[in-house]
């Protein structure tokens, strides 16, 4: 039987320290002007010329030095073994700065490695702890979020495995050193690590709205991987066990992003005058911002609740994380909407920064399932299977 989730969500000194460090570090090294210069200089670059989204690799090196990539890796495997409650605290800051980086993708891959069983797990956790980046390559062409729906197959060839097929909607693929995929072999699905430089591996870039990440389709053609890359069996079970952490991590990014959108719109509403008054005087501006704040706060509380459930291994962690993702997706959608609307004409232009966060949020709202998706899953346990 698991312990009770702590009343303070297990968010103690260490967690606060990391969060505060991240806040000051990113505040200093990655202020909004830096973000704007990095991703918005030329509106044609990404959208018209199809260039890849820019990111600050030098800054990333510093982040690796800070050890953030190894946070979810157990100490036994050379990582920090940090609490989920602490990790979401950090990810909130990542979202609040809309940082383009492979951190979230790598954390999500770490969760799966952590939950995987098999000889190979240790090796790949070590690599991440040592600074390698990774991303999950598990989604089918329809964008189904069911762990069972991958399209990659494998066949044995001597000690090696040979992989074929494609994975879609791979997050920050062009920043990843290796990919985690679940390959169908016979009637089992094995978890495999596929290095980005593998022969027969091809990434085709998705053209996306979000300016703060890249996304790609991973094509595997006769990709041969050695035994040490075959992490273990029961890939689906590992994905399912990791799912609460994945959902709550994306939710935290959404929530941090939403807090920036709220504060930026509040500041605008204090400065911008209309009818000789700051527009924040008007309840048509004030009350939606208050509603957004309340949505964000409930989502944020649900994120820490879910994180604390995960940390104590509470059996209802998955539902708790789905609640957090549902609330964060909806809160993100609402403040994204108001941030553009209440910024008025300027908010509709490239000159304003709100569109950067709008697009990052919109991307994360659907990633791994939006509110409707999460709620239909929760209903299965809360109310019972459909048509029971």
């Amino acid at each position, binding site marked *: 039987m698991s312990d009770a989730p702590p009343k303070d969500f297990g968010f103690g000194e260490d967690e606060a320290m990391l969060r505060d460090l991240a806040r000051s570090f990113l505040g200093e090294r990655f202020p909004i002007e830096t973000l704007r210069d990095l991703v918005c200089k030329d509106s044609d670059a990404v959208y018209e010329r199809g260039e890849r989204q820019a990111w600050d690799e030098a800054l990333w090196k510093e982040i690796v030095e800070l050890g953030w990539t190894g946070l979810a890796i157990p100490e036994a495997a050379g990582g920090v073994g940090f609490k989920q409650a602490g990790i979401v605290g950090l990810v909130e800051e990542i979202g609040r700065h809309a940082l383009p980086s492979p951190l979230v993708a790598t954390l999500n891959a770490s969760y799966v490695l952590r939950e995987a069983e098999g000889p190979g797990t240790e090796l790949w956790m070590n690599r991440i702890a040592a600074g390698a980046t990774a991303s999950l390559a598990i989604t089918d062409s329809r964008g189904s979020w069911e762990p069972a729906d991958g399209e990659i197959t494998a066949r044995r060839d001597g000690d090696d495995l040979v992989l074929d097929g494609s994975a879609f909607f791979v997050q920050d693929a062009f920043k990843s050193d290796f990919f985690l995929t679940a390959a169908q072999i016979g009637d089992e699905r094995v978890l495999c690590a596929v290095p980005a430089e593998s022969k027969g591996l091809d990434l085709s870039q998705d053209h996306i709205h979000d300016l703060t990440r890249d996304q790609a389709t991973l094509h595997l053609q006769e990709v041969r991987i050695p035994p040490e890359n075959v992490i273990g069996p029961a890939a689906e079970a590992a994905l399912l066990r990791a799912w609460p952490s994945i959902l709550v991590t994306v939710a935290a990014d959404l929530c941090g992003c939403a807090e920036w959108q709220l504060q930026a719109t*509040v500041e605008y509403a204090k400065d911008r005058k209309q009818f000789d008054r700051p527009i924040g005087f008007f309840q048509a501006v004030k*009350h939606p911002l*208050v509603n957004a704040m309340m949505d964000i706060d*409930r989502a944020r509380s*649900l994120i820490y609740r879910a994180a604390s459930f995960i940390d104590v291994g509470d059996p209802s962690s998955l539902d708790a994380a789905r609640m957090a993702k549902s609330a964060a997706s909806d809160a993100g959608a609402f403040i994204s909407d108001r941030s553009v609307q209440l910024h008025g004409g300027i908010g509709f232009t490239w000159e304003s920064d709100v569109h950067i966060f709008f697009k990052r949020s919109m991307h994360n709202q659907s990633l791994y399932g939006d509110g409707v998706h999460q709620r*239909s899953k929760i209903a299965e346990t809360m109310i019972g299977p459909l048509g029971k």
Partner: protein
Amino acid sequence: MPDASLTSEQLEFQQYARQWTAQNPAPAPSVRLPLTPLEVKTAPQIDYLRDWQRRCYEAGLVGTDVPTDYGGHGHNACQSIANRALADAGAPFMVNVVGLTMMVPTVLEHGTEEQKRKFIPGALSAEEIWCQGFSEPGAGSDMANQQTFASRSGDEWVVNGHKVWTSFGHFAKWMILLARTSRDHKYDGLTYFLCPIEGHPGVSVKPLVKMTGETGFNEVFFDDAVIPDALRLDDVGKGWTVAMTTLTFERGAGEGAGGGNSASNPLDKLIQLARGSQRNGQNAADDPVTRDAIVQLAITHEGIRSSSRRARVPALNDHPMRIPLQQKVSSSEFQQRLARLGVDIAGARSTLYKNDSAAPDKGHWPMSYMNTYGMTIAAGSNEIQRNILGERVLGLPKSK
């Protein structure tokens, strides 16, 4: 949601609480009981309910977490277990709800040692019923705009004014009273009193009828009513802060001292209703549109509860009042949406009044739906609460 698992003290207490409630069913009432404490109307009703609360108190299921010095039972985090056990046993609610969920937590936080010893035991045993005096006709939805004035004369205060929305006013011995003691400051001009009502010179009570046809709330008039200074709670001018504590606790930030089943998950009842209702010729619990609406509410409910927790983790609060000031709006609107969804799910049967035998859940849903407007209107309408949030938390310019 399965409840988070329990400490050994809680487990032991849970066992006891379940046992006691199983062995001590509430006696059959001689009169029909109202659905909630807010509709208590007749003497037989109040007598029955007082007696029931007293028995639960003596059994240790009320005031469970209150220190023994103040007549409590000194447990840790067991009140919600007691509430749940009582709810599961279908026991009647605790009638002294204002005393238990508002006065006790507030006095525990702001009261003097004397006040704690004087007021808490009687509230727990229901010997002394409490009512709330936060709302005024003139103040309308602006709770800080109290006009009831308490002027100091020596060791006493002389109170004049007019309160509305006063549930239990007609049975109450005491009122938690928010009164203006200075006209120079709006918020800092308020002071919090523990004011005698029943038979007190200068105090008169007039019952009002709600839109549901129920009575149970009142107007209270003060004409030169005198209160000794010893009945002042916390400092002069601190009234607003103290009242915020009161409301924060009432709105679920804490389990109070036994607020009558507050811990039982209100969604369960809704899900039961859906299982027993039809939607387009199918079980409403199998209608995905209804399911989505129910889960939306469950998420909001869990979010409100988790926010109350988070409010007590300083590291997770950039602004100390951001969550506390939200809870009244969030929880009252949650209650309203919850009841409204119940009305929609009940469909044609939601037309039935509580005294119709075919009304689902004894007519709870439409009745509760209408009564939730008490929450969204009273004690500072939610429109005003949103102004306060926008101004005091987000720092937006005043809408007034």
